[in-house]
C-alpha cells in the first residue's frame, strides 16, 4: 500500500533559523511528488512538483529536493509569513492514469519573530 509520512508533525522556528521538513514515501513507482502550503481556513496551495531523484526546485526561501525514498523542503531564513502547514503528496503508477494523489498528514510550521 502506498504510504506518505511527514516529519516532524510540528516545528517552531525563530525568524531566520533555517531548517528542513521531511516527507518519506513508499509507492509502487513514483510518478511525481508534490508540495503544498496550507494556511488556516484555506485550501492547499500548490508549491512544487518533483519527478525524479536528484531533482531540486526553488521558490523564494523554499527549496525542495527528492531522493528515491524521501523529499525535503528546506526553509532558509524563514519569516513569520512562512508559518503554515506544509503538505506532501505522491502520485504512483497505481493511480497515475487518473491523477490521484496520496497525501501525508502535514507539518505545521510556526515561525516566531
Amino acid at each position, binding site marked *: 500500500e502506498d504510504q506518505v509520512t511527514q516529519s516532524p508533525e510540528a516545528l517552531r522556528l525563530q525568524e531566520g533559523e533555517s531548517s528542513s521538513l521531511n516527507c518519506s514515501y513508499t509507492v509502487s513507482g513514483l*510518478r*511525481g511528488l*508534490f508540495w*503544498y502550503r496550507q494556511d488556516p*481556513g*484555506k*485550501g*492547499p*496551495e*500548490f508549491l512544487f*512538483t518533483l*519527478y525524479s531523484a536528484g531533482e531540486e526546485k526553488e521558490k523564494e526561501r523554499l527549496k525542495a529536493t527528492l531522493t528515491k525514498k524521501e523529499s525535503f523542503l528546506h526553509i532558509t531564513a524563514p519569516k513569520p509569513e512562512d508559518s503554515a502547514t506544509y*503538505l506532501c*503528496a505522491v*502520485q504512483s503508477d497505481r493511480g*497515475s*492514469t*487518473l*491523477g*490521484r*494523489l496520496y*497525501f*501525508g*498528514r*502535514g507539518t505545521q510550521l510556526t515561525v516566531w519573530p
Partner: protein
Amino acid sequence: DVKVTQSSRYLVKRTGEKVFLECVQDMDHENMFWYRQDPGLGLRLIYFSYDVKMKEKGDIPEGYSVSREKKERFSLILESASTNQTSMYLCASSLLGQGARQPQHFGDGTRLSIL
C-alpha cells in the same frame, strides 16, 4: 491562474438532511476530486471523476455520492447527513494529460457542521 470555487465557505445543516456541496473550476480540467480534512487525519479522498458522468470511489465513499453533469462542475451529496460528517470539505481539479503527472488545484473549502 486556476480557480476552483466552492459555493459555500460555511454551512450548518441538521441530521438527516440531504446536503449538496458544489464545486466549479474554470480551467477545463478533466479530473475533479472531493476530500474531507479532519484534525489528525489529514486529507482523505471521498470520490473523484475523470470525465463527465464518470466517477470513482476514493477511500471513504460511504454516506456520500457525487454528480458530474458538466465538465466544470462536480457536486458532493450527503444523502442523509450525520454528525460524523462534520468536517472541512475540499474540492480540487487537475489536468489529465502529460501522463497525468499534474498537480491538483484546490478550492478554499466548505466547513460543514451537522447538528
